């Protein structure tokens, strides 16, 4: 069953990748077509799954940056991203890793993190098929964002300051959140943006008691 699913995924991916025009904020489909582990829905929906499988050795990290021609001195501008998120079965293979620019606004790493959290919830709630989710993100994660999250994120210094000021960054590992302007706002390894009201409703607490 897993093999059939993987073959189906590969076939769908081939057709989609070949049809999409690439943008700078998307990985090179030749280098990073996407790759998945043999996992089940039960595996990925088990709390702590992503942490269990997060393991990218240094030689693989180096290989990815080399493949993309990123100068070692400029690595800080990128986040090594799993194209198909670990949370929905993506693997640690170089076929699934790419240097994602932090500043490719609006399609930077924060937007991708937000998509990943949303898709994981949809898949585990039975509202989105796992193989479909993997294939959609591998084909064009920005399209998947539009489909499952909504319009592209709004710029920070922008026309809707009120909405941004009420947005917080939740560290989904620690359960704490930071407010806009706080040191770790949007910067922890695991997390997602949401309104403060939503964060409080979901049981998250302000970091340090204040979120600052």
């Amino acid at each position, binding site marked *: 069953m897993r093999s059939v699913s993987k073959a189906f995924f590969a076939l769908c991916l081939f057709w989609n990748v070949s049809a999409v025009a690439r943008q700078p904020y998307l990985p090179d489909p030749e280098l990073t077509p996407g*790759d998945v582990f043999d996992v089940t829905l039960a595996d990925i929906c088990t709390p702590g799954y992503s942490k269990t499988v997060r393991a990218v*050795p240094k030689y693989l990290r180096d290989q990815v940056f080399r493949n993309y021609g990123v100068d070692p001195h400029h690595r800080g501008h990128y986040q090594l991203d799993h194209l198909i998120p670990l949370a929905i079965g993506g693997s*640690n293979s170089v076929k699934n890793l790419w240097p994602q620019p932090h500043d490719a606004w609006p399609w930077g790493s924060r937007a991708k993190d937000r998509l990943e959290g949303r898709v994981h919830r949809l898949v585990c709630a039975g509202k989105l098929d796992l193989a479909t989710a993997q294939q959609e993100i591998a084909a064009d994660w920005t399209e998947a964002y539009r489909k499952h999250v909504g319009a592209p994120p709004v710029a920070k210094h922008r026309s809707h300051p009120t909405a941004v000021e009420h947005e917080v960054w939740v560290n989904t590992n620690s359960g704490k959140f930071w407010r806009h302007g706080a040191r770790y706002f949007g910067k922890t390894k695991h997390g997602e943006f949401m309104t403060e009201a939503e964060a409080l409703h979901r049981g998250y607490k302000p970091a340090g008691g204040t979120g600052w």
Partner: protein
Amino acid sequence: MRNQKLTNVIEGRIVRSATVEPERLVVVFDDHSTMTVKTVPGLAAAISTGAKIKAVLEDAAECTLQFEDGSAVTVTLANPGASVAVRARSGAVEYLG
């Protein structure tokens, strides 16, 4: 270089059986957990029953299992980062990479 994460998972486990297939190695441990390693085709590796895992080393695609008795087995991973799976007796994921 030691794969500390995988070493932490299987260190001390004793090999109950090991099956070498053309493109994978399947090791069942005494606690009934299973480690599956996808390897390049045609690789031969012999693992003795009763051997106790000491550590796991990785050097690019080369993965070496070190045993307490001083012996070691090296296999070439088919797809580094996505070739090794360890599951507990219950089927729960213990390691993927």
